[in-house]
Structure formats: structure tokens, C-alpha cells
């Protein structure tokens, strides 16, 4: 993605006022809900540190935990596959689906499956895949893309949704969210009755027991792991935690960070396929472990991004995300964590501008349940990947430094600011500077200089007040 393309998308996003307003309201609400829910905990700070430590431990010993996990899944009757790349993951899943003669697949929300573009691959071999999370279902009706990792249609309003439902499902037009949900429920019930393949992501894989933990609010994750004959769970290799006893640490943080709930409505723990005494549940369980560049990050300076539990708190907290929405990032993972993960996993060149889409205010790190130091990593990534700064920016910075190092030069520069020719808006803000200043004002506005400086006021009598 070139720098220009990114800028154009951002400009387009900012111009779409209703969307930006919707995103803004929703994220502000979520930040408040998160804050209240975390305050309910006796010791949220300690709990976050513990979560960070457990995840980091798992990553530091990932080979051992993977070995243990594979053995445990197999002991429970599951089959484990390894996919070095997204293409391999697609091939593995298509293979399973074809071999088991599946026709109709249901999918729980899974960012990892978005990452590998699974639906198209399944369609190519004649398998229809239906998204079952309400938000993802609507995204699919619209041939759109999710714009938030937890609430995929944060960018749509009810009128747009009503229009898509009528267009695609032929139902009565209604803007009532309850009615719209009922229509989707009825439609998807029929799909759940007939489906034969279920595809889910995994929130946590338990190394010691081979258990897959899947958290949903709607119940689609449960339907997807109850109804079809075959269940395929797709997970990144970083999704493991060591022990069942570690799970409560993450459960207590995940939903709180995500939506301000103490727990998601359904926390499902799957260990192997259906057993002899079970009357329902899939006959086969396949776990697909996806690497896709994750292992290359381990042992390096960016390893801690793999602690991420995809709660979305950093998106909600981010002033940049709130003002440009998710689509402007043009990547599966938007927001602060996306600005790290996308270039790191999908090639730095193509997404080299994303690490710059941050004001480095630190709100993301303060919200992160596993204490990923996002701002520091963003700076590091900027230095690692950025094309060298342009000569004009470098010159500008030098001049800035020279001005700031002397009291007299600083005072002179202040006077110049007031009279310098520049394009200003109605309120006196500089919206386009000249010369070296242009590099700065290209994406920022400068506030008007006050008519008198503090030094002037001080000299004129402020000192005596």
C-alpha cells in the first residue's frame, strides 16, 4: 500500500461523516463500559500483569506447548494439521471438506479465517459458506468487509442494514434491530439444520488438555460446534495457554476489555469430537494450526504482539481509529494492533504507512489486557521500515532544533509565526504551510499563534498580579 493510497483512504473515510459519527459513538461507549467493568475487579492491574506473563511464558516456550497441545488434541480424538502459510491452510481445509463431501459450511466469527480468505477458496470447490455471527452475516450479504475485530458492522446504520436484508433475503423492510435480528435468526436456523461443516476460530487453546475455548455472545459459536458433522477449528500457533487453570485469568479480562461484560454469554470449551455417550456434536474435530509468519516474530523484538487476545480494546481507545474507522487501514486487523500486526505478518513494504497512523498517545497500551507496549513497538517499526525521511522534513527538524536552542531565536520565530505568509482557515489555523513547514502541515493543522506571547504578557504586568 503506497503512502498516497493510505492518505486517500483516510481522506475518504473522514469525509463520510455518518460512518465516523457511528464509529465515534460506539467506541466512546465501549471505552466507558470497559472502564466500569475493569473497576469491578479487585486487582485489575495485577490481573493484567499475570495475563501478560502467562502469554509471554507460552510464547517463550512455544515449541513445548505446541508439542503438548498436539498430543492432547490427538488423545481426545481430534486431528491436528499444520499450515505454514495461508495458502496451506486453505488447501488443508478444502481437502477436509472435499474428502468428507461437505456441501454447506457455517462459520463462527474468526479473524484468522479472514486472514486466509477462506470463503472464496471453499466457494471455488462448490461449498457454500454462511457467516453466522450477525454482524459478519450482514457483512457477507453486502459483500463488504468487517471494520472492527469485535463489532464488524460498527460502520453501518440500521437503514443500510434494513436495505441489504430486504435486497438479499427478500424480507419485509424494517429498521427495528429486534425484527432484523429475528429475520436473520429464522434464516440461519434453517442453515444450521442442514449444514455439514462448521468452521470456527479459537480464542484460547489449552496446551495441557487440548481444549479449545471459544467465546461468543450470540450462540453461533455453539451452534457451529454442535450441529455439523465436521468441525474445523482454525487457530494461529500463538493462541495457546499452558493450563486449564490459566483460562479464568483471560476470561476475566477478555469480555471486560472487549464489551464491558464480566464474561461473554457463552464460553465454550471443546475437548475432542463427540464421544460414545454423547448424543450430539460433530463426529470429527480438525484443528488447523496456522503459522503465517508468526514464528518468524518469535525471539525477535516484536514477539510480544503475539500475546494479543484480539479483544479490540486498543481500537476503541485509539483516537486515530475513532476518527478514520476500520476500513481506512485496509487490513484484516485495523487499529493500533493492526498497525503492528499487518506490516509484521503481511510484509512491511506494502503496509509501511500503518505504523504512522498513531499519535503515540498511549491509550492503547493503557487498555491492553496483556500489556503489549504498542506505542514503543510502533516507533520501532517506523524506524525499521520507514523510507528515510525526506530532505525537507530533515531540514525542517534541523531548523526547529536550532530555533528551540536559543531564547532569542525562539522569540523571533514566534513573531514570525504571526506574520508569516501561509494558508489559514477562518479561525486562523494554518492549514498549509510553505517550504519545510509544508511537510508538517500536510497532515496536521497548526493553531493560530496568540497575539501576545507569555513573555510579553509577563513583562507587561502579569508578574505583578
Amino acid at each position, binding site marked *: 500500500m503506497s503512502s498516497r493510497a493510505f492518505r486517500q483512504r483516510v481522506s475518504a473515510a473522514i469525509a463520510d461523516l455518518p460512518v465516523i459519527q457511528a464509529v465515534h459513538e460506539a467506541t466512546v461507549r465501549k471505552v466507558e463500559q470497559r472502564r466500569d467493568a475493569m473497576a469491578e475487579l479487585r486487582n485489575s492491574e495485577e490481573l493484567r500483569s*499475570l495475563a501478560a506473563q502467562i502469554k509471554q511464558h507460552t510464547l517463550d516456550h512455544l515449541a513445548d506447548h505446541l508439542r503438548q497441545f498436539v498430543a492432547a488434541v490427538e488423545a481426545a480424538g481430534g486431528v491436528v494439521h*499444520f499450515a505454514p502459510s495461508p495458502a496451506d491452510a486453505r488447501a488443508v481445509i478444502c481437502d477436509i471438506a472435499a474428502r468428507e463431501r461437505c456441501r454447506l459450511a457455517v462459520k463462527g466469527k474468526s479473524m484468522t479465517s479472514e486472514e486466509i480468505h477462506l470463503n472464496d477458496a471453499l466457494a471455488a470447490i462448490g461449498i457454500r459458506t454462511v457467516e453466522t455471527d450477525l454482524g459478519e452475516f450482514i457483512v457477507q450479504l453486502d459483500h463488504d468487509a468487517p471494520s472492527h475485530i469485535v463489532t464488524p458492522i460498527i460502520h453501518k446504520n*440500521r437503514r443500510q442494514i434494513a436495505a441489504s436484508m430486504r435486497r438479499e433475503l427478500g424480507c419485509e423492510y424494517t429498521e427495528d434491530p429486534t425484527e432484523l435480528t429475528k429475520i436473520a435468526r429464522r434464516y440461519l436456523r434453517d442453515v444450521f439444520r442442514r449444514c455439514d461443516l462448521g468452521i470456527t476460530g479459537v480464542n484460547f487453546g489449552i496446551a495441557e488438555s487440548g481444549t479449545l475455548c471459544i467465546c461468543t455472545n450470540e450462540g453461533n459459536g455453539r451452534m457451529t460446534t454442535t450441529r455439523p458433522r465436521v468441525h474445523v477449528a482454525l487457530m494461529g500457533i500463538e493462541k495457546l495457554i499452558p493450563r486449564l487453570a490459566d483460562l479464568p485469568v483471560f476470561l476475566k479480562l477478555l469480555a471486560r476489555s472487549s464489551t464491558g461484560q464480566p464474561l461473554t454469554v457463552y464460553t465454550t470449551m471443546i475437548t475432542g469430537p463427540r464421544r460414545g455417550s454423547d448424543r450430539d456434536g460433530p463426529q470429527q474435530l480438525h484443528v488447523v494450526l496456522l503459522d503465517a509468519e508468526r514464528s518468524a516474530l518469535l*525471539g525477535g523484538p516484536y514477539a510480544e504482539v503475539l500475546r494479543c487476545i484480539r479483544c479490540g480494546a486498543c481500537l476503541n481507545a485509539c483516537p486515530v481509529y475513532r476518527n478514520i474507522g476500520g476500513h481506512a487501514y485496509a487490513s484484516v486487523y485495523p487499529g493500533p494492533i493492526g498497525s503492528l500486526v499487518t506490516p509484521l505478518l503481511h510484509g512491511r513494504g506494502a503496509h509501511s504507512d500503518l505504523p504512522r497512523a498513531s499519535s503515540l498517545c498511549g491509550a492503547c497500551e493503557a487498555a491492553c489486557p496483556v500489556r503489549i507496549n504498542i506505542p514503543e513497538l510502533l516507533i520501532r517499526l517506523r524506524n525499521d521500515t520507514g523510507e528515510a525521511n525526506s530532505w525537507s522534513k530533515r531540514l525542517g527538524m534541523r531548523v526547529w532544533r536550532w530555533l528551540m536552542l536559543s531564547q532569542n531565536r525562539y522569540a523571533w520565530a514566534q513573531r514570525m509565526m504571526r506574520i508569516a505568509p501561509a494558508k489559514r482557515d477562518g479561525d486562523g489555523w494554518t492549514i498549509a504551510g510553505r517550504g519545510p513547514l509544508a511537510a508538517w502541515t500536510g497532515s496536521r493543522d497548526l493553531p493560530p499563534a496568540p497575539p501576545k506571547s507569555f513573555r510579553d504578557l509577563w513583562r507587561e504586568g502579569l508578574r505583578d498580579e
Partner: protein
Amino acid sequence: MNSGAHSTEFAALLDRLSRRAPLAPTPLPDETAAIIRQVDECADAPREFEVSARRAGVEVVRLSSDELCGVLVDLAKSMLASSAWISPNALSLLEAGRQDLANSLATAGCTLGTMPEDHARFAADLGVTLVRAAIVETGSLLVEAGAGEERGTSLIPAVHAAIVPASRIVPDLVDAFDLIASRPLASALTLITGPSKTADIEGVLVTGVHGPGRVIALIVLDA
């Protein structure tokens, strides 16, 4: 392509990871329960569970075991249920026999299934299960698939009534996980915390998306 976990690719990954392991790896903390725990013990567990369950959107009824049958029939009547799906485990707790319950439900125009065929699963209006545990901290119900309990009973019908013996109420999530670890894991365990819900459309809360829109905890005080 050999994609299995025993493929050479996977072995190569493990090898690469081992070689890249950091020199000073982060240790795994051992005694974590004290940090994780939010609720210590409960003077009146049923009462405290009732409060948190209600907060999670669960309806609560407190009763004694000899009232259970009558309460279920009343519930079926009040919601005009035409078919109830009661798990064998839940049935075992009822003092009335299967036939008695079936007869009483029949007077309310409701049929009874314990191990229904697939079409009947989707026709059931009311699902009744026996929980493995209930958690004061979050108001959650722990249901377990296996002998006598299906995954679908607490999921497919529009209303889920969960029988909660008072003796199975535990203070904290940590206690529930101790219970889970105390015997071999079932193929599916689910913590249910309130009715199925979404806020995907403009943040408006809607219940009953794919799972039950009503969850009722029947706390049996003497069980």
C-alpha cells in the same frame, strides 16, 4: 502435501522455535489463584447467586425439590409451550416420574421429549437441563455435554430452564475450574452467562439471536 502435525514441516517449525527460544524465558507463575479470585466465600450462596444471575439477565426462581415438577408445568403453560425437551439428567432430579411429568405437561398441551429426534429438537420451545455448577461471581451456569445431557438442550429452544441444586453453587470462576479439572473433561463444557444477545446493530441490545432469549435458573434449595 503432508499437512499433519507429524509432518516434516511441523518438526521443522518446532526445531526453529526451540532454537529461537529466548535466553531468559518468562517463568510460569505457580500460585495464581489468589490473584485471580474475586469472590472468596458466600454466607448465603443461593441469594448471592440470584443477585449476580439477575444482573446477567437470568430470571431466578427459588424452590424446593418437591415444587420442581409443578414449576416446570406452570412455566410450560405460561409460555404456551407445545413441546418441552428435558434432559435425562434433569429428569433424574424430579421427584415425579417421567410419566407423571408427561401427563401433567399434556394437560397444558405440551409434549415431553428427553432424547428427541433431530426435527423435534428444533420444534422444542423449552429446554430443561441440570447444571454441573453455578457461579456467584458472574451469575454463570456451567453445562456439560455427555451421558444424560446434550449440547443442544440449552441452546436450540427459545427458553432455557436450568436446574441449579443449591449445593452446586460455587463462589468464583476459579472454583468452577477446580471442579472441571476434578474429573476427565467432557467433549463440550459451556459457561452460560445470560440470554443469547447481540449489540451489532447500532449498539442496540437484542436478545435471542441464536441461543435462548430467556434463561431461567431454578435454584433447588434442598438439593
